């Protein structure tokens, strides 16, 4: 029970600073569950991220997998609620008043200020996933190839995921 409460509290705090969406939260999730609490090792963290990538649904559900690893199904439920509930409550009471401060100068300033920080966060996410997965040179080449192709071709993400799984199964990375 103490474990579930800790999980719930930590993830609730996390979601309140999750500017830039859930993918931007991966570095902090990693710091929390791998380095600080030591609930799992690097490899498992990378595996859970990979499973969430290959499954349908909003990408916040990687958190359900992390919660599952920490404390089974109750952990998955606690983690999912902790990530979605706090901001859902805020937005429920706020959305009616949005029009009033939509054009306020401070609102635009925060939005402009968040954008570059989100870039750094998502970049750190990619870095930490690659590092956690323990990629060798061939793995890093696959990562860079996916980055480049996605930028110039923009095929559906599932193609990259499938190619990654195939390359792994064939022992190429």
């Amino acid at each position: 029970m103490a474990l579930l409460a800790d999980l719930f509290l930590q993830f609730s705090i996390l979601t309140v600073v999750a500017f830039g969406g859930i993918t931007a939260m991966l570095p902090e999730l990693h710091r929390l569950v791998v380095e600080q609490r030591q609930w799992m090792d690097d490899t498992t963290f990378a595996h859970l991220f990979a499973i969430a990538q290959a499954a349908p649904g909003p990408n916040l559900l990687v958190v359900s997998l992390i919660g599952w690893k920490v404390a089974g199904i109750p952990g998955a439920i606690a983690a999912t609620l902790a990530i979605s509930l706090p901001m859902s409550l805020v937005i429920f009471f706020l959305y009616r008043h949005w029009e009033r401060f939509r054009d306020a100068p401070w609102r635009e300033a925060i939005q402009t200020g968040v954008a570059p920080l989100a870039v750094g966060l998502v970049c750190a996410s990619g870095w930490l996933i690659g590092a956690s997965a323990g990629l060798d040179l061939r793995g890093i080449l696959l990562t860079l190839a996916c980055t480049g192709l996605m930028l110039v071709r923009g095929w559906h993400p599932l193609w990259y995921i499938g190619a990654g799984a195939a390359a792994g199964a064939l022992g190429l990375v």
Partner: protein
Amino acid sequence: MSHSPADARGAAPEPPHPATPPARQPGLWELFLACSRVGLSGFGGVLPLLRHLLVEERRLMSGADFNALLGLCQFLPGSNVVNLAVCVGARFHGARGAVVATAGLLLGPFLVMMALATAYGEWGHLAVVQDMLRGVAAAGAGLLFATALKMARNVPERWIYLPFAALMLVALVILRLPLPPLMLALLGVTGLIAYRRGRRAARLAMTAKTES
């Protein structure tokens, strides 16, 4: 699916003003099913599907309304699609609608995740499974880098703001600082820069207008 869009339009009489924004009220069950379908079919991004369903397929809100709600949801922290489901559900059915829409969006994919987690618990130790997951993680990291670069391209006045992206990256990857205080500190700086530049631009626009 019990309500096809054709049914919904056929049941209504001829629309008197085609240009007025549609304001059909979906039932709670329809809301749940629609959100479930979006959640379960969303690979690598649920947002475009949600927009398609609400604005084009079911015509539950206008594109402008959707964009306004999305603006709020992307502005606030947390998961953008969950925030959006709360807004959309609340708009039609208050608190009950918010709960139903969010539950619809998350329940199906959550069950899929738990099935996959169970399979991982069972077969995760196999070498071939570990190899595949490592490959997927490598590809997924590549997609994250591509997302970051695309986002960087959209940052205005890059020479001012992108150094802060680099600062964030270093603070997280090398210094391993905790995000909450880091986010508040850096956002304080970038927000203040943006605020002052916005103010100055508004003042310049004002003087230009009075002079002409």
